[in-house]
């Protein structure tokens, strides 16, 4: 389109290879890339493929911060990155890192914005003009007087983007900026980026695991694997190729189905040429997909008798998620033999204010001051409404629910709705709650935490918060040390758990030498080996690629078939649709809905409250149903539709 000779390309890499000082392997291997101006690129690849290294090469951290052997050249706006420092490059390249918390160093948002400009010695007039522009673009006017560390994840990411926009760089690189955000916030950030590309003419490179968030926005996709450039094509062209599907990248569920469905359709044809054709037939745009599904439905309905379909309209009401159905009847039996709940929660309330009051007892001076303050507060209650709102509002309000053996319960709700607090109260990590929690018939108020954790295993998001031993085996031994087991039994449990998670080859390795995904598995193993009756996952899918997610689903379903109860806190709607038998929705500290996933996820009002987006399939399906009114109304995913047709036969 644009001839490369006339306009200076933002980034050019030629035969660029890099070896970190601490390793012997090539982190990047002969990369040749030309990044064109004003385009939006996605950098895709499995974990450990070299995405982060490439980003570091673009912003100059390689070779100036991370030393090593450097081959070829990287030119940023014609400047060779070896001759320049990251600070000098920052005028051309702005970087947003994965964890916004670590790139915000100031106590006020305004200072965050001025930081880089001050460092480079700009005048006050210039700084003022620049930050005002950045504030307008990112719409953070209302955050200016707050501290970055007290903002929500999405707000922090906005401030981080604003802080690099202040320098007005032409190129913006983002290293997995969406990974800790909920779907709605993530799409807000993407919206902002698209706007920056289109209105301000920025060149943007984003790396992201969940392609679903970004596919609509990006012009081109760069795929790298094992340090090598696999391909660089316009989005639609690449989606019709084999690469992405092969590498186990987290592709939207619908696309993945189209891909695998074509596999089964054309099994007989093994000719290579036909293979290529087959892939190129994957429907990408919405109209293509609708057309494809229409044909699919027509074919299926031709085979089926209308009467059967009428009957099947009650389909799914007593239905289990697709994944579980495949595993046979064992679970089905369990989840409907609801006799005694294993965990029962009555009128659970919690507030942080309450917990402070309790610990304050016994000191008169503090009490007197507090009383004086309370009086003042009442007077000023209207004025400082915002302040009080955030402190005094109970985090949990009067929640009652029950959990049964063999259930897989998804907990959804936007950040700060009380999901984590709820889970922490169940395990007694927060003990100042009011109300009663019965675990196996016993009130947890009279149990010690270590007694409760024998029955309830809570798996946290960040494995780095718990790994500390020399070897993986020692890590698991630590988890088992307080359980009444013999040495042989411990050995057996450790081996079994490691095998189940397919990490037995790491048994004698240091957990710190492993990748993020592997660490996550070890954290999971450290709970699973304790064999709790109830397993709680806190956002298990964040940063996981498609294969890892698949594995996780299998583990959950396997545990469920062994009479465990699973509770999953997640924003990953597609993940929950596949496994959950029940969904609990939290909003402002209260359970506002508790039902079968197919009812919850069809309620757009509820979804919006949880900061979730309706599954991509649902809008297609709504159109399909206009044409084929005989289809049942409460189908959420393509797998369910497929299963529905199967059950009619």
């Amino acid at each position: 389109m644009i001839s490369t000779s006339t306009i200076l390309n933002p980034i050019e890499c030629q035969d660029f290879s890099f070896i970190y000082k601490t390793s012997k392997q090539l982190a990047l291997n002969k990369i040749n890339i030309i990044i064109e101006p004003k385009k939006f690129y996605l950098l895709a690849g499995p974990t450990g493929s070299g995405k982060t290294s490439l980003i570091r090469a673009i912003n100059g951290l390689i070779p100036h911060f991370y030393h090593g052997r450097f081959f070829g050249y990287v030119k940023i706006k014609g400047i060779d990155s070896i001759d320049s420092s990251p600070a000098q490059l920052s005028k051309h390249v702005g970087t947003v890192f994965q964890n916004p918390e670590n790139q915000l160093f100031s106590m006020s948002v305004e200072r965050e914005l001025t930081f880089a400009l001050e460092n480079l010695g700009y005048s006050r007039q210039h700084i003022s003009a620049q930050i005002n522009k950045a504030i307008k673009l990112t719409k953070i006017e209302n955050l200016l007087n707050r501290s970055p560390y007290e903002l929500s994840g999405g707000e922090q990411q906005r401030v981080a983007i604003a802080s690099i926009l202040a320098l007005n760089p032409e190129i913006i690189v983002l290293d997995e900026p969406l990974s800790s955000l909920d779907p709605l916030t993530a799409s807000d950030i993407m919206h902002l980026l698209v706007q920056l590309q289109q209105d301000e003419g920025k060149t943007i490179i984003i790396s992201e695991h969940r392609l679903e968030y970004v596919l609509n926005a990006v012009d081109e996709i760069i795929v790298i694997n094992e340090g090598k450039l696999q391909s660089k094509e316009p989005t639609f062209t690449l989606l019709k190729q084999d690469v992405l599907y092969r590498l186990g990248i987290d592709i939207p569920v619908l696309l993945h189905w189209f891909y695998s469905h074509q596999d089964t359709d054309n099994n007989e044809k093994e000719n290579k040429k036909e293979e290529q054709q087959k892939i190129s037939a994957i429907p990408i745009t919405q109209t293509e997909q609708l057309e494809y599904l229409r044909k699919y439905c027509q074919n299926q309905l031709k085979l089926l008798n209308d009467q059967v379909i009428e009957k099947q309209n009650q389909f799914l009401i007593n239905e289990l998620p697709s994944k579980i159905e495949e595993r046979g009847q064992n679970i089905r039996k369990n989840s409907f033999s609801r006799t005694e709940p294993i965990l029962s929660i009555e009128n659970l309330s919690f507030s942080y204010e309450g917990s402070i009051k309790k610990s304050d007892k016994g000191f008169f001076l503090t009490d007197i001051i507090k009383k004086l303050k309370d009086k003042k507060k009442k007077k000023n209650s209207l004025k400082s409404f915002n302040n009080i709102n955030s402190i005094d509002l109970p985090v949990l309000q009067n929640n009652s629910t029950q959990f049964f053996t063999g259930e897989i319960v998804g907990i959804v709700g936007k950040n700060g709705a009380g999901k984590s607090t709820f889970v922490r109260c169940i395990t007694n990590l927060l003990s100042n709650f009011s109300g009663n929690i019965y675990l196996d018939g016993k009130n947890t108020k009279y149990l010690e935490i270590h007694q409760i954790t024998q029955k309830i295993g809570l798996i946290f998001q960040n494995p780095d918060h718990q790994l500390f031993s020399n070897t993986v085996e020692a890590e698991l031994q630590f988890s088992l040390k307080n359980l009444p087991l013999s040495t042989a039994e411990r050995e057996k449990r450790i081996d079994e758990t490691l095998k189940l998670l397919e990490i037995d080859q790491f048994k004698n390795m240091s957990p710190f030498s492993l990748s993020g995904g592997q660490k996550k598995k070890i954290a999971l193993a450290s709970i699973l080996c304790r064999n709790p009756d109830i397993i709680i996952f806190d956002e298990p899918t964040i940063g996981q690629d498609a294969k890892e997610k698949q594995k996780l689903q299998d583990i959950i379903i396997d545990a469920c078939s062994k009479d465990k109860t699973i509770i999953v806190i997640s924003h990953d709607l597609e993940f929950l649709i596949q496994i959950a038998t029940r969904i609990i929705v939290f909003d402002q500290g209260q359970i506002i809905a508790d039902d079968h996933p197919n009812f919850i996820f069809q309620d757009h009002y509820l979804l919006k409250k949880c900061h979730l987006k309706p599954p991509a399939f649902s809008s297609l399906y709504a159109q399909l149903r206009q044409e084929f009114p005989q289809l049942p109304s409460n189908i959420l995913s393509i797998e369910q539709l497929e299963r529905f047709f199967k059950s009619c036969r």
Partner: protein
Amino acid sequence: MSLKITQTFNFMKKTTFFHSLDPRTKGLIILLYGTLVMVVGDLLSLLMVTMFAISIMILSGLGTKLIEGIQSLWLIYLLIFIINSYMQSLNLAFILILRFFNFMMVFAVFFQTTMPEDLSQSLIQIHIPYNMAFTLSLAFRFIPTMAQETENIIEAQKSRGHQFNKGGLFQQARNFFPLLIPLIIGSIRRAFHVAEALETRGFGVLKKPTFYRKLQMKRKDWLVLSCLTLIVVIVIVLEILQKQNQISIPWKYNLSI
């Protein structure tokens, strides 16, 4: 206990009179008030000074957190009391405790009301190297983050069945390894990330950055400083005169043991 102290000496976002003062003024207040506390040599006067300071703090809207944190140092007070009442006199022991309390208080006011960046900026303005000054403000910035992380690690280890307060004293100390190791490793990792981000934001290009908002002494800064200086001078003069027996302060010697 430990977490409460960090709260006491960490910046609190509020709008009080002390917040609006220039950090340099507050630094001088520490110096002046410290002199005052050291000069006043008898219990009753010291008590009056202390009460005066506390009432000013409460009036200006600081208070609860401050006193909470300072009282959590009771172990140190007890230690000072025991040692001094044993070695010296009861009177001196009380005086020392009050002095210690006062010092804690004035430092706490300083750190609670001074934004770390204002502190580092004022340090830079009095010609302390940018690197050092910025390190200080960075340390303060990450206190809440680290506190949060500590809590997360404790929760994660507890849910693996770890009991932090089990066993004898030695065992209890060992029980903290599962907290300390992830915390230290996490901090090192965080330090790397922060350093990366600093590199890409032009940190260290100039020896002395420009400032968007310059710190300036205002009229109330001068007012506070001159008032306090006046008080200190008067007290010093009174103390000297009294030592030379030229005047007698009525409440002195009546109570001292």
